């Protein structure tokens, strides 16, 4: 049977469907809670998937990813606080529209745009991931090394942080990945004689720490924030006139979101910003943006949900995370003994397609959850911070412990949380640290393999066309923006 159909058959299992419904509801709750986002949610719930089979486990994580990304719009529209950073641009027009008494219309538009963006991007994922994987079959260690390096170089452009600080954080993650016994030579590195460090620093406790515990410390500074909540009567489906006005924006943002998602390390936040800006640029009424323009909501929401499907393309086809949440999902794949990469589409094609179909199911499911449950989920924002974050801490600690049943992992999670807090305090993003930790091992392994293959003449890498291509992309990712800025500034000075 065709693997695509076999993957679809996996959804015929009622227990998986029930699990996906629960995970989607959980994802919506996580996304609706200010401070919690898809990445934190996936990291906190990863230990819950340990006893599951691989398909339900990863399907649950992807469901949380998709649903939480969508649900950020609920708080963005109703309390002017994005539930996730990917919904920050939704606030700009969603909240003004809600204040005008059109909260239901704004949420309806967000739901429809998110669903269309999500469904179309999963379709792209189904088509693009196997093609990319087939192309990746041509790759040998030097190409993989250059590609992984390119993935790391893209860290420079994530978020609105400083590129150099992102790169330092990413390199720190790569450094943490070398702790433990070297797989190639069995030499101990930075273990200090501690047997807990022989297998290296675990991905899961670090992610729980830097995303969960560090956020607790950040939230301790925001206890006095007063949120004004808009009362909503009911979610309304967009009118015919609304559809006419936004359909092009939704399709454009879906394309943008999917493309941005496919780029290694770039996620829904960047996608929503570009989607929103492009919606304004193409709009016939750009002056309405910031005052309740429906194209603004559609542009932002379609793009951020499309990025979730896009981000899974490099994650599954190449083993390079497309976003921070995809990095957590990648850690989940590794924990379940699944090695993402080109072979996944030949040796575990059923698994890959089961994940794609479950993502499709979740994207359709939150259409109904959004339309019928948004009013209820909006009430979740009323959960006091003083109750929510102690609970998050309990789940963080127990989750960190559960994977290896080791208190050492709890200390790693707490230490990572404190490190993450101080990194954020000084303007370093924690996302590059997570991605660097995931990619560090791969980078070293492929570098070593390349050196063996090229007889220790590393400079021969540039004689291989594909390797050279990825190395050029790496240089462009690192220096392109500053060169472009310089050229642009000189041009504008001449004018």
């Amino acid at each position: 049977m065709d693997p695509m159909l076999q993957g679809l058959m996996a959804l015929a299992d009622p227990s998986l469907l029930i699990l996906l419904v629960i995970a989607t509801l959980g994802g919506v709750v996580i996304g609706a809670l200010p401070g919690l986002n898809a990445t934190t949610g996936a990291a906190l719930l990863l230990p819950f998937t340990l006893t599951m089979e691989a398909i339900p486990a990863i399907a649950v994580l992807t469901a949380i990813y998709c649903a939480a990304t969508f649900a950020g719009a609920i708080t963005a529209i109703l309390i002017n606080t994005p539930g996730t950073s990917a919904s920050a641009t939704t606030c700009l027009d969603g909240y003004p529209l809600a204040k005008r008494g059109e909260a239901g219309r704004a949420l309806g538009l967000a739901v429809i745009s998110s669903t269309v963006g999500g469904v179309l991007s999963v379709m792209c994922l189904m088509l693009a991931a196997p093609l990319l994987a087939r192309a990746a079959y041509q790759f040998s260690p030097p190409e993989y090394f250059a590609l992984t390096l390119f993935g790391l170089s893209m860290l420079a452009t994530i978020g609105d942080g400083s590129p150099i600080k992102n790169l330092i954080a990413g390199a720190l993650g790569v450094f943490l990945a070398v702790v433990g016994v070297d797989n190639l030579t069995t030499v101990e590195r930075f273990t200090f004689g501690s047997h807990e460090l022989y297998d290296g620093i675990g991905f899961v406790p670090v992610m729980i720490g830097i995303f969960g515990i560090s956020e607790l410390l950040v939230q301790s500074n925001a206890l006095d924030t007063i949120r004004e909540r808009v009362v909503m009567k009911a979610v309304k489906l967009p009118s015919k006139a609304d559809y006419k006005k936004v359909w092009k924006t939704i399709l454009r943002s879906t394309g943008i979101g999917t493309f941005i998602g496919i780029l290694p390390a770039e996620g829904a936040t960047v996608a929503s910003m570009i989607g929103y800006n492009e919606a304004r640029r193409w709009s016939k009424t750009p002056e309405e943006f910031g005052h309740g323009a429906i194209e603004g909501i559609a542009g932002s929401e379609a793009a951020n949900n499309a990025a979730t499907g896009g981000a899974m393309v490099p994650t599954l086809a190449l083993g390079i995370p497309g976003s921070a949440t995809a990095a957590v999902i990648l850690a989940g794949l590794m924990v379940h003994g699944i090695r993402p990469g080109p072979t996944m589409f030949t040796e575990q094609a059923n698994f890959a397609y089961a994940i794609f179909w479950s993502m499709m199911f979740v994207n359709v499911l939150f259409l109904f959850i959004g339309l019928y449950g948004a009013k209820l989920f909006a009430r979740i924002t009323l959960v006091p911070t003083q109750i929510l974050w102690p609970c998050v801490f309990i789940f963080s600690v127990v989750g960190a412990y559960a994977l290896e049943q080791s208190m050492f992992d709890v200390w790693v999670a707490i230490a990572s949380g404190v490190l993450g807090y101080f990194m954020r305090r000084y303007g370093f993003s924690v996302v590059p640290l997570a991605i660097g930790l995931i990619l560090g091992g791969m980078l070293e392994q492929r570098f070593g393999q390349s050196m063996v293959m090229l007889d220790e003449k590393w400079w021969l890498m540039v004689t291989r066309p594909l390797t050279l291509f990825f190395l050029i992309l790496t240089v462009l990712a690192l220096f392109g923006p500053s060169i472009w800025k310089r050229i642009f500034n000189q041009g504008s000075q001449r004018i």
Partner: protein
Amino acid sequence: MSDSSVHRSRESWLIAFLIVSFCSAAIWLSLSFEKMPPILKRGIQPSDFPQLVCACIILMTVYMVWRDPVRVVEPMGSKTFGSLLLMVLFVAVCSIDLFLALALFAVCLSIYWGERRPAYLAFLGFVVPFIVFFLFDQVFKIRFPRGWLTNMWYG
């Protein structure tokens, strides 16, 4: 120069110093790694890659100090400092019992952050740890470290 800019500048130097010191220490430690004979080293020595990464971090830190110095994005409030201290307390109480430490931390943090309602505090101190313990123990078959409270269940 204003006081705040002096403060920022000091922190900027301090962070750069910490990063460079950490990487220098890592490079120094890596010098003691076992060297493999050419036939076994598989392309690179075990110390090569960490040294390369640390050297890159040092170079980038120097660039950061020059072009984009560290600034405090958000000053640390007293609540954050107190929360950090509560984490230290949590680590200390963990040696007695993990769930006792979790319940204590949750209640203390909540009170410290301004919660005063007894029902909510009881929920955090009793209900949540109880549910989490039995969920992981019974459903996920996770065995927690022995302590004053967990011994009551494990016997």
